[in-house]
Structures are given as structure tokens and as C-alpha cells.
């Protein structure tokens, strides 16, 4: 196999650990192994490191106080803690609003909550992927405990207007809490929880060059929430378990670097993404963009290749060392294609052949250029296999 050179364009799935992040965390896997709760000065080193990381996260999302930051073991845990925590402290209210395109870690939790007696409304999106804000405004009522909405979508990169959403909700019901899944926004666009008036917000380290298995949760001070993991006094009693010091140090350092890198994301990463996207759309006759061009994080593009199946494309790209992902049913082991693309009404011809490329600050122009040159060849090879030759000929005539 020709997999010697790897072209990793699946950074929305996970990212490589930044060398500086690794350097920062390693001492805490080695000599600095103390428990931060310990009283002796050896423990103080770990305690200070955790405190510094908390400051770095606070700074990253512009929270008011370090006390608003809680460390967890993943984006999923942050989301579960936020959602269950708010509902548990607000038992009489049984209404929740979310969107149809949330990540499964949120959607599946709502399915469970529905069985436990909660009413959940799912707000839809249009074909550009933009949220239906009018419906949202109509849906908030006096019984709405929580609105939960992602900041950026993992499959399409579409950004929801969180600030506006917050205004809408608060104008309808002051007491309704807003939880934002910012896992795919962190490190790609600026996050300012104060400006956007967010009550709770989750991030996950491995999406911005920290290791997998560490996340953080922001809870605005004054927001009532009950802990999910009950036990020791760590994280001010809101998340028991001895702190994972090396990983907390890592997510802190990664946040610092991500904040520094935001300018680069908005310019260079975006330039490479746009180059990749526009060239493929131009050179591959059956390619279509599965979202609007605007309001997207700078690193993501989701392209549908009509009348070809996505897993087959990924397998062939993999033979060239190219890593991407697909909203096709077959890749995930589920039988249904992406709920996000279906909510947007992407036609069936392109739905099963949708490919997501997601770049990072480590992506090079050379890598993008290789994908640009390989993509048309792979697609031409696979087009020959398709039973929809007449339809493909028609497309070629129209777009070619």
C-alpha cells in the first residue's frame, strides 16, 4: 500500500497532539505525579498546574472567573453534565429545545430524557444548514428549562448565530438556560461566553490538538446545576474524581495555542479549505457543496459526489493515504445516512456520497494540492461502477 505519506484531513474527528502540548503534559506523567489535593508542597506543583490550565481555558472562552470552568473527561461528559445538571436542579420544568443537527452525544441523551417524561422539541434547518430562528422563538415557553444548541456543526462546519439565539431565548423566558456544544467551534472561531450570553458551554481537548479524553465545561456563575459524578470534593464538588493533571495541563496549553492560532485559522486554513473546495467543485463534474458557502468554520467542507457511495470513495482515498470521513450510512455501521445532511434536505443522489474534509493548522498546501490532483482520478474510476450511467451522463453534460 502507498500509505507511507499520510494526508490527514479528518480534523473534526480528532486532531494530532501539538508538540508543545505534549511537552507541557509529559512532566505530569513523569516526575510530577502528586495529587493536587495533597497538602505538602509536592502536591502544590500539580495544584498550580491545574489552576493555570483553568486560567487558560477561562481566557480561551472569555469567562469572567476561573470558578466557572470545570474539567471533565470528554465533550460528551461535559454535555451530559450540563444538560442533566440543569434539569436536575430545575425539576418542575419538563420542556427542552434543541436542534435536529446536534451531535449524537446530545441527541441520544434527549431520546433518553424523552422516555423519562421530558418534552423535547427539535428545531430544523434549511438547505444551507441555517437554523430556523422563527420556529425557535415560537417554541420557547414558560416551561422551557433548557435550550441546547451547537455552535458549529461537526459534519458541515455551519455556525449557528449563538448571540442572536441567546437574545431570542432570553427575551421569551429569562429563566431558560442556554447550553452550547462548542466542541467544533473551539480553536476554529473566537468564543466569548460573556458577549454571547451563554449559561453553559462544552469543549473537548482532542478537537484542538490536546489528547483524547479531556474536556471542559463552562457554567456561568449563579447557574444552578447538580453534579453528574458524585463523590469527592474535586472541581468544587461538581465533578468528583482525582484530577487528571497531565490531561488538564494539556487542554490548558492547547487552548492557549488555539487562541493564538485563531488568526491563522481565519486566514491561512480558510484559504487552503477554499482552494480545496473550489477546485474539487470545478474539476469533478458530479461534486456539489452540501451547505451554503457562508457562516462556516474555516476548516471544514462537505462535498457530495452524486451517484457514488461514500465509503467506497473513502476506501480508495485511503489507498492514497488520504484520511477524510463520510456521512454515508455504510461507514458508521449504522444503516441510515447522516441525520445532519437529511435535516438539510440534501438529495439522495448526493447524500450517500458525501465526503467531509476537515483541515487543521498542520495541513500544508502540498497536501491540499495532492488531494486536488487525486480526487478527480478516484471519482472517474468509481463513476464507471455506477448503475446510474444515464443520470451521470446528463450531469456531465450540464456541469462538465
Amino acid at each position, binding site marked *: 500500500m502507498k500509505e507511507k505519506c499520510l494526508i490527514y484531513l479528518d480534523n473534526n474527528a480528532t486532531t494530532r497532539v501539538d508538540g508543545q502540548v505534549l511537552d507541557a503534559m509529559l512532566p505530569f506523567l513523569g516526575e510530577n505525579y502528586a495529587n493536587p489535593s495533597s497538602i505538602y508542597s509536592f502536591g502544590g506543583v500539580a495544584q498550580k498546574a491545574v489552576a493555570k490550565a483553568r486560567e487558560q481555558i477561562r481566557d480561551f472562552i472569555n469567562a469572567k472567573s476561573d470558578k466557572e470552568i470545570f474539567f471533565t473527561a470528554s465533550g460528551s461528559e461535559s454535555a451530559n453534565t450540563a444538560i442533566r445538571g440543569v434539569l436536575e436542579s430545575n425539576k418542575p420544568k419538563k420542556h427542552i429545545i434543541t436542534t435536529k443537527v446536534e451531535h449524537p452525544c446530545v441527541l441520544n441523551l434527549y431520546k433518553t430524557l424523552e422516555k423519562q417524561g421530558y418534552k423535547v422539541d427539535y428545531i430544523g434547518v434549511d438547505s444551507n444548514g441555517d437554523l430556523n430562528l422563527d420556529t425557535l422563538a415560537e417554541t420557547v415557553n414558560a416551561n422551557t428549562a433548557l435550550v441546547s444548541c451547537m455552535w458549529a456543526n461537526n459534519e458541515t462546519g455551519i455556525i449557528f448565530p449563538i448571540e442572536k439565539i441567546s437574545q431570542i431565548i432570553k427575551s421569551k423566558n429569562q429563566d431558560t438556560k442556554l447550553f452550547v456544544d462548542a466542541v467544533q467551534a473551539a480553536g476554529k472561531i473566537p468564543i466569548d461566553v460573556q458577549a454571547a450570553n451563554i449559561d453553559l458551554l462544552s469543549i473537548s481537548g482532542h478537537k484542538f490538538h490536546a489528547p483524547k479524553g479531556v474536556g471542559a465545561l463552562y457554567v456561568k456563575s449563579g447557574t444552578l446545576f447538580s453534579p453528574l459524578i458524585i463523590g469527592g470534593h474535586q472541581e468544587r464538588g461538581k465533578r468528583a474524581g482525582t484530577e487528571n493533571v497531565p490531561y488538564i495541563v494539556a487542554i490548558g496549553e492547547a487552548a492557549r495555542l488555539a487562541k493564538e492560532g485563531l488568526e491563522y485559522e481565519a486566514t491561512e486554513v480558510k484559504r487552503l479549505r477554499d482552494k480545496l473546495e473550489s477546485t474539487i467543485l470545478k474539476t469533478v463534474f458530479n461534486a456539489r457543496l452540501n451547505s451554503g458557502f457562508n457562516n462556516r468554520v474555516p476548516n471544514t467542507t462537505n462535498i457530495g459526489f452524486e451517484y457514488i*457511495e461514500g465509503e467506497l470513495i473513502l*476506501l480508495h482515498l485511503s489507498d492514497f493515504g488520504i484520511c477524510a470521513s463520510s456521512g454515508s450510512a*455504510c461507514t458508521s455501521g449504522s444503516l441510515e445516512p447522516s441525520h445532519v445532511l437529511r435535516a438539510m434536505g440534501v438529495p439522495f443522489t448526493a447524500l450517500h456520497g458525501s465526503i467531509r474534509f476537515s483541515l487543521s493548522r498542520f495541513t500544508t498546501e502540498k497536501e491540499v494540492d495532492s488531494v486536488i490532483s487525486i480526487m478527480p482520478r478516484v471519482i472517474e474510476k468509481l463513476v464507471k461502477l455506477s448503475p446510474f450511467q444515464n443520470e451521470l451522463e446528463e450531469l456531465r453534460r450540464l456541469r462538465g
Partner: protein
Amino acid sequence: MWDYTKEVMEHYRNPKNVGKIDDAEAIGEAGSLVCGDALKIYLKIKDNMVVDAKFQTFGCGSAVASSSVLTEMIIGKPLDEVKKITNKDIADRLGGLPPEKMHCSVMGHEALENALSKYFKEDVAPHEKDKMVCTCFSVTEKQILNAIKDNNLKTLEEVTNYTKAGGACGNCKADIQAILDKYYGSEISKAKPILTKTQRIIKINDIIENQIATELRKDGGDIDLIDIDDNKVYVELKGCCSKCKNSTMTLKNFVEATLREMLDEKIEVIEVEK
């Protein structure tokens, strides 16, 4: 990443016999664009022999591999032999497929069957009696029964892996289970009864009422059955039990353990609060 065999990889990388045959004696089709995989197979038949075969497939790696290997298996074979090929033969020739991908071999087999019935001018229009079970993936009762018979399928999950039925909205799951129950009900001895959905609900209620609740009441507690969804049993703990710190222990070690022992290892008990 799927754990594909060398054979599967070779076939999706370099598929054999791709394309169409313009003067084919028979063309078979299976699947659809909407469902995410679709296959056409073209047969050139002379003197009751398949002298040439070609395919076109819209689908994943294992769908292409199944079609490709199928054409290799039938070229040069007399029709009698071709008729006997099952989806299992296709999967075996590929060194096996991941369980979730078995429906790819089933689709290959369906396309072949479709071509042969057309060739022998059999009635291929769906029979009225052949009830549509899964509307999401257009799978009929007959297709499900065939998959059960050919592959010795025992569970709902297996049926979904082999036919896709039940894999989307899930509305048809009860019907599929009923087909399984009916098939095995008529085959398996009475020694190991398989309960219908309703019988199962009654039984669960019985166990909770007569064995679990009576125990809990001794300690001033109580339990209510709220809902049953497949293997998930939702209950509400009341009285002392609900306030008791050990309620999770009660739930898992006693309520769940009792139901599992009496009825089904797979049962999971979940507490709901009103």
C-alpha cells in the same frame, strides 16, 4: 475501520466484470439509490450456461466486492448450478464479511435471483401476499423469511444486518420479531417457549408484582412498572426505596437480577422519576 478480508479489498480495488452487456438475455436489479445501495447484473446466457456476466453497483466496498465476486462465480457455470448459489456462498468466497455488511451479499444474491426469474419468465411482480414489512428499506416479508432460512438467523439484530430491515426508524421491529417468532414457533420444540410481545409484557408485570414488589413492601418500599421498550424495563421506586441511598443497588442487584434470572439475560432495568 471495517475489518475487510484481503479478498474483499482486492475486489473493491480492482473489481472484475464491471459494466453492462447490451444484448444481455437477463438483467437483474436489487436495492435503490434511496437506500444507499443499488445493483444491476447483466447475464449472457447460451445453452443453459452463463457465458458472460457484468455488473454495475452503487454501494460501499463490500457491495462492490460482493457483486464482483458473484460475476466470477457464475461465468461459465450451467444455470442449474447458478440457481443454487446463496448469499452465504458469496460471503464465503470473499473470506467472510463483517456482520453489519452481510446485507451486501444478500443484495448480490437478490439481483441474481431477479435476473433468473426474469429469464425463466417467472412472475416477478411482488405478490399481494408478500407483505411489505420495512418501508424504510422496502423489505418484504418473503425477503426476511428467505434471509432467516438461508442464514439461520435468530435475532432481530441479525435480520437487520442481513436485510437492513429495522435499521432506520425502527417502526417495523415488532413485525420482524413476529416473523422470527412465527418461524421458530413453528419449528422449535415447545421446551423453550418464545414469548410474543404481549405475553412478555404480562410476564414482566407478573414477576414485578408477585416477586419483586412483595419483597420490597416488606421493607416499606414499593415499585411500579412504567414502560417496556424491547429489553429496557422502566420502573419507578416508591416509598422507602426511592429515598434510600442504595436504590441503585436495589435496582440492579435485586430487580434487574430477578428479571434476568426469570426471563431474559438481556433485560435492563431503568429507574424513572415521576
